[in-house]
């Protein structure tokens, strides 16, 4: 009994030692990654870049974009390339994510669609805001999608205002593009 107990104790000690070493290694690796990102501040592996249709919008530091789009009464207005999602040498997973939308003037709109497309025009995710009563209703595809190295994806926005909409009314939308490496 004593010998077996000692053996078990040795195994547990060994496992804990191995675990401490593994944890320490992983922690150092993680810290190194964070340091690298901090050093090269303007070269995120996946960056937002202004597209041909950004108009009065802007992109700051590849991480934040502000967009201003119009919506015409009863007409579908399409911004095919409002933003480009530009990947570097890594192969991350990417997804669209809804954050918030302001319902104040929801009934002035028919829809606001935000679509993520790959370089061949294949849909990789969408956030479609339609209107029910006085509120926006979201249907979405927010699955993680693998992005190849050096790939450039595209964000398209489609809008339509209601036939009875009031000029100047707005809808503020916040969304995110999550990146996982």
């Amino acid at each position, binding site marked *: 009994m004593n010998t*077996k107990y000692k053996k078990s104790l040795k195994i547990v000690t060994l496992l804990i030692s191995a675990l401490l070493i593994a944890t320490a290694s992983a922690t150092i690796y993680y810290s190194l990654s964070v340091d690298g990102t901090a050093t090269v501040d303007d070269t995120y592996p996946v960056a937002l870049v202004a597209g041909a*249709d950004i108009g009065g919008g802007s992109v700051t530091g590849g991480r934040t974009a502000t967009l201003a789009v119009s919506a015409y009464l009863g*007409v579908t207005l399409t911004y*095919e390339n409002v933003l480009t999602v530009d990947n570097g040498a890594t192969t991350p997973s990417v997804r669209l994510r809804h954050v918030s939308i302001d319902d104040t003037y929801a009934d002035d709109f028919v829809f606001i669609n935000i679509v993520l497309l790959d370089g061949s025009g294949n849909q990789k995710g969408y956030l479609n805001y339609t209107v029910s009563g006085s509120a926006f209703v979201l249907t979405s595809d927010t699955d993680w999608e693998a992005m190849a190295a050096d790939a450039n994806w595209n964000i398209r926005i489609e809008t339509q205002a209601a036939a009875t909409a009031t000029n100047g009314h707005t809808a503020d939308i916040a969304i*995110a593009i999550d990146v*996982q490496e």
Partner: protein
Amino acid sequence: MKCWCTVKSRNLTCLISLLILVGTLNIAKGSINFAETIQATASVSSPLVTLESVSNSEIFNAGTSANVTVSNETSNLNVLRILNQTKDEWQLQLIKYDESNIARLTNCTIWFNNGSTPSKQIEISDGQFIQPSGDYYNLVGGGVDNITITASTNTAGTSYIYTHLKILKPNTSTYALYIITFEVT
């Protein structure tokens, strides 16, 4: 009793080891997650280009949609006027997206016409589409273009040509699609 204790001790050791390993998986994975944020504001705006009836047409949605009705033996009839409400240039294109009962149309031609340079956009001959869309046509700042139609049929009935008037901002891929339906009786 001794045997039971040994088995229990081994199982406990295995269980603890397993729990510790599973619990530290995230540490070992070392993945990086971050989010890029997009703040968009959509504003209801007056259309920058509007349609106006010249003849045989009805206008809807604040000048962004129209129905045109013409009869057999219509020739070079201006039916709609396209008005540029801005000082910016736009590019226009008429694109067929659907049709109904066009076999009776011996000829139906629709074109843009600013008085000097016409641009054929849609042509049907002997019930077949010869041209379902046209080249881009410049609408200058503050300018006016007409939509003109010629149509003839060989039997009684009603034919429909459903089109989009595409209005493209030059050097971008920003565009609006206006619905214009042509009815030939």
